[in-house]
């Protein structure tokens, strides 16, 4: 299987463990990711705050470049915000001829053009959770993550708004499913699609720290050993700012936050270090040492007495 790949700026440095682990896991599953040549920044949330046409044009250029190497297949983005910007631009360009003309007039200055709707884009999670057969993943597992309790964190932008590939605004399940294929326990995580605060850490720290605190608390309250994310912004906020949360709220959170591709890598037999598991602020080593050799024994439920009234299980 082959895809075009748009890593985005975060995966070049702050989140390069996400990139490295994705490539390693992909290779093991026989997937080839071809980087879009000379891609540019997606504009994050900042461009749209200042200039609408330039914001759409940034993504327009990336889409145009992806179309030029379309033979490699659909376009995959590992960052939820990059993906949102690609899909949002394409969507609005399809909706408004005027916008499409403006973007194309701009692109023409650099010898490019893009016909709205001609590139299909999706999240990296969907490659591993939807495109690949479950059995293929299980076959590759060398070390099941037995006993590890994981809170699956989707974040906001991979779930909303209603562009392609967003299965459920509040309770998506594809990451849950992928994690359980690896043998780990998925804990309930009601805030799984809540926002991590995005760029608010740079604007109003108290606002951001409160959003981060809610997520950490929700994961810990549900006995998670670890939070697993699919977005570099989420990882950075929950991991690097955990210490700030503790200082600000006088809490003692100490829960590691890894990318889903990193734990896939561990399950596929890679050394944690190869997966960049040392670059996180809250060290994941201790938690990974908890992995059991065999599935934990779940106490058998008592069988209802044959004479008892049939009661629904709740």
């Amino acid at each position, binding site marked *: 299987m082959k895809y075009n790949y748009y890593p985005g700026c975060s995966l*070049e440095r702050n989140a390069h463990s996400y990139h490295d682990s994705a490539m390693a896991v992909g290779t093991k599953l026989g997937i080839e990711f071809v980087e879009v040549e000379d891609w540019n920044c997606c504009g994050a949330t900042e461009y749209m705050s*200042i200039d609408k046409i330039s914001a759409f044009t940034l993504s327009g*250029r990336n889409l145009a470049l992806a179309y030029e190497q379309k033979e490699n297949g659909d376009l995959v983005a590992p960052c939820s915000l990059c993906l949102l910007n690609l899909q949002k631009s394409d969507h609005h360009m399809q909706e408004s001829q005027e916008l499409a003309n403006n973007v194309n007039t*701009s692109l023409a200055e650099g010898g490019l053009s893009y016909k709205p709707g001609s590139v299909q884009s999706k999240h990296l999670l969907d490659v591993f959770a939807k495109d690949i057969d479950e059995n293929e993943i299980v076959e590759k597992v060398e070390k099941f993550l037995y006993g590890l309790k994981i809170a699956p964190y989707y974040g*906001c932008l991979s779930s*909303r*708004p209603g562009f392609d590939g967003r299965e459920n605004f509040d309770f998506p399940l594809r990451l849950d499913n992928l994690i359980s294929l690896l043998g780990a326990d998925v804990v309930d995580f009601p805030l799984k699609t809540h926002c991590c605060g995005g760029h608010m850490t740079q604007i109003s720290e108290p606002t951001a720290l409160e*959003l981060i605190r809610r997520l950490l608390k929700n994961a810990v309250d549900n006995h998670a050993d670890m939070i697993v994310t699919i977005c570099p912004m989420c990882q950075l906020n929950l991991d690097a700012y955990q210490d700030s949360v503790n200082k600000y709220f006088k809490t003692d959170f100490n829960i590691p936050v890894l990318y889903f591709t990193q734990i896939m890598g561990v399950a596929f037999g890679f050394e944690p270090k190869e997966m960049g598991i040392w670059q996180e602020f809250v060290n994941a080593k201790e938690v990974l040492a908890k992995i059991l050799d065999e599935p934990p024994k779940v106490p058998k439920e008592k069988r209802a007495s044959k004479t008892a009234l049939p009661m629904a299980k709740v």
Partner: protein
Amino acid sequence: MVSDHVQQLTEIQEADFEKESFLDEIDRSVSSGFSGIINCIQCGSCSGTCPASEDMTHTPRHLFAMIASEQRDEVLSSNTFWYCVSCYQCVVRCPREVKITDIMYALKRKAIRSGLYLDSDSISVGFSGRFLDYVEDYGRSFEFGLATRHNLRYRPLDAMKMAPMGLGMFRKGRMDLTPNRIENLKEFQKILKKARELGETI
């Protein structure tokens, strides 16, 4: 010929009619050309869902009522849209399909162009502006440059507190001191220059 008095009234009304309402202005500015504010029933689902509404001077619901009553200056100097985290939760909850997040972006753009944003919100404007500067110089974002320049300019006291985190980022190989550049930078800059020209008046 009607009386002069009536004629005068008609002229005033026509002039009023020709002047674009704030609501129309916002409709024109959102990407799809229709903001949906006209459909808002003031149910407050947006404010109830918003993870940041506690820090906003006006909740989104309140702001939409102010927009409908043409309080342009008050709206554009509100901090509401600067605290929007762009998570789209209100958008999927809204029973009237108001394009809330797109409206917040439109209001940011209008507040910048009109200069009506408050000093306390200049940190948001500064952050976005700085981000743009780096992207236009290199084609990619430059975290180290952005974080240091932004924090030194707007949060010099916090910048000292941030230092250990910055150091941690280096030690863990998560930050570079130099920016990455795209290859076709000249063409890229021409494209963006054109986009800005075409741009958008709003």
